[in-house]
């Protein structure tokens, strides 16, 4: 079968390659940021902050390419889904890059603090989990693997649990010999939150990838809960079975 719209499909392939590159840059920066956090390394932290400009430039280029394709090429069916997904993933990975920068800014604010072994262990694990989720999301995109993309939601539960343990560990540290200042405790809590959000962006990416592959928009958990509540309200006035997760 002859390819009729070669140049257009080449443009789509280029966008796809740029999204993979963007995600790869974030996925490479994240373990470095975690190492810098654990080692109080301001030089690496600063390097990551400066390099985020490269991510932003790439992201702007991707957005412009997608807008140009929408304006000029009238993408249809799978092509349309590919362009829309690229625009959404662009946002998710660009924002992920910003979160890595936020972690690095936290390193500056926490400079000099000796972390307890428990906190060090949890930070290391959160870093590994967030990196794994990002990497798997980009694998799912590259392979067009809707199954893997949908599994990210469940995989993210582990990162959420780690973050809860981490917050508890910060509280526990308050009662140790070397007590954390309120400012340090808040900064540490925010760093934990940045890791947790990185996982959420990977899950969002997974949902968009499912749409790209299957054409179906996956139901968001909140939308599913609302639909369930509405159904229950119609049959019997009752509360949802499970409370909202914290």
């Amino acid at each position: 079968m002859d390819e009729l719209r070669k140049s257009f499909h080449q443009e789509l392939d280029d966008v796809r390659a740029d999204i993979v590159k963007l995600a790869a840059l974030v996925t490479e920066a994240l373990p470095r940021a975690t190492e810098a956090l654990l080692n109080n390394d301001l030089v690496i932290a600063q390097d990551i902050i400066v390099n985020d400009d490269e991510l932003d430039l790439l992201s702007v280029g991707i957005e412009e390419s997608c807008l140009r394709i929408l304006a000029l090429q009238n993408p249809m069916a799978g092509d349309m889904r590919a362009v829309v997904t690229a625009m959404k993933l662009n946002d998710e990975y660009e924002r992920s890059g910003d979160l890595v920068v936020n972690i690095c800014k936290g390193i500056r604010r926490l400079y000099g603090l000796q972390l307890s072994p428990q906190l060090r262990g949890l930070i290391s694990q959160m870093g590994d989990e967030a990196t794994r989720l990002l990497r798997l999301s980009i694998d799912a995109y590259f392979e067009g693997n809707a199954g893997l993309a949908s599994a990210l939601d469940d995989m993210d539960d582990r990162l959420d649990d780690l973050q809860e343990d981490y917050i508890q560990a910060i509280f526990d540290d308050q009662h140790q010999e070397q007590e954390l200042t309120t400012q340090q405790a808040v900064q540490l809590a925010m760093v934990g939150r940045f890791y947790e959000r990185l996982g959420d962006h990977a899950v969002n990416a997974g949902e968009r990838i499912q749409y790209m592959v299957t054409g179906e928009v996956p139901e968001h958990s909140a939308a599913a809960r609302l639909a369930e509540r509405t159904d229950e309200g119609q049959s019997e006035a009752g509360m949802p079975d499970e409370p909202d997760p914290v």
Partner: protein
Amino acid sequence: MSDHADDVTAEPADAPRAVFHVEDLRVYYGDFRAVTDVSMDVHDNEITAMIGPSGCGKSTVLRCFNRMNDLIPGARVEGRLDYHSIPLYDHKVDPVEVRRRIGMVFQKPNPFPKSIYDNVAYGPRVAGNKKGLDDLVEQSLRKAALWDEVKDRLKNSAMGLSGGQQQRLCIARAIAVSPDVLLMDEPCSALDPIATALIEELMVEIKEDYTIIIVTHNMQQAARVSDRTAFFTAEVDPNTEQRTGLLVEYAPTDAIFSNPQDERTENYVTGRFG
């Protein structure tokens, strides 16, 4: 419990009504099978688009809907084609009455070499309608979004109108005989983008009163105006090298253009087809 609770075939009251029910339709020109495997329901007050590459049989199928194929020597239609549950090709059905109820607008505007007024009044006059012609002409021209442009020159020749105006005049002429269905065969392919936009807007406005089936090469047009889209393609018999058109996929238009289920549809709408 309702009396029909066990009747699983009963349709809900708001289900779209099928104007045409097509089942395993095949069209032959002599021994040559031009189209095969067409099964679809055309719904009331909807715009149904038929798209596909040249030679896929979409215009042939369109002509079946008002028995225009009867006029082609050797043409033969097999299978089932019901119009409001009446077999359209039954020998008792009068093809002239069929074509009054099911009007047609062609690719090239084809006004009669008469005045604008006489073009619109032609059908009603032939039908013996002599009273209230002025009102009927005005209403038809208004429905076709042409009245304001021609109301001061109704006696002028229709041939002096622009291409887009001529096509809207042909639509006015078609609706002057109060049809039920309008068939449109590439109605905008000879028009500029502004005239095309006017016709498309008109189609969406008048679908409240008519059922419209449009054949178009312009996929964007099908996407813009239609409620349902039928994708046709042609397959070549390796032994005889004959090309036969067939219906590949028929679905709500947004499904065809955002998530088609058949790979051939996907390849066509994304331009991976040749």
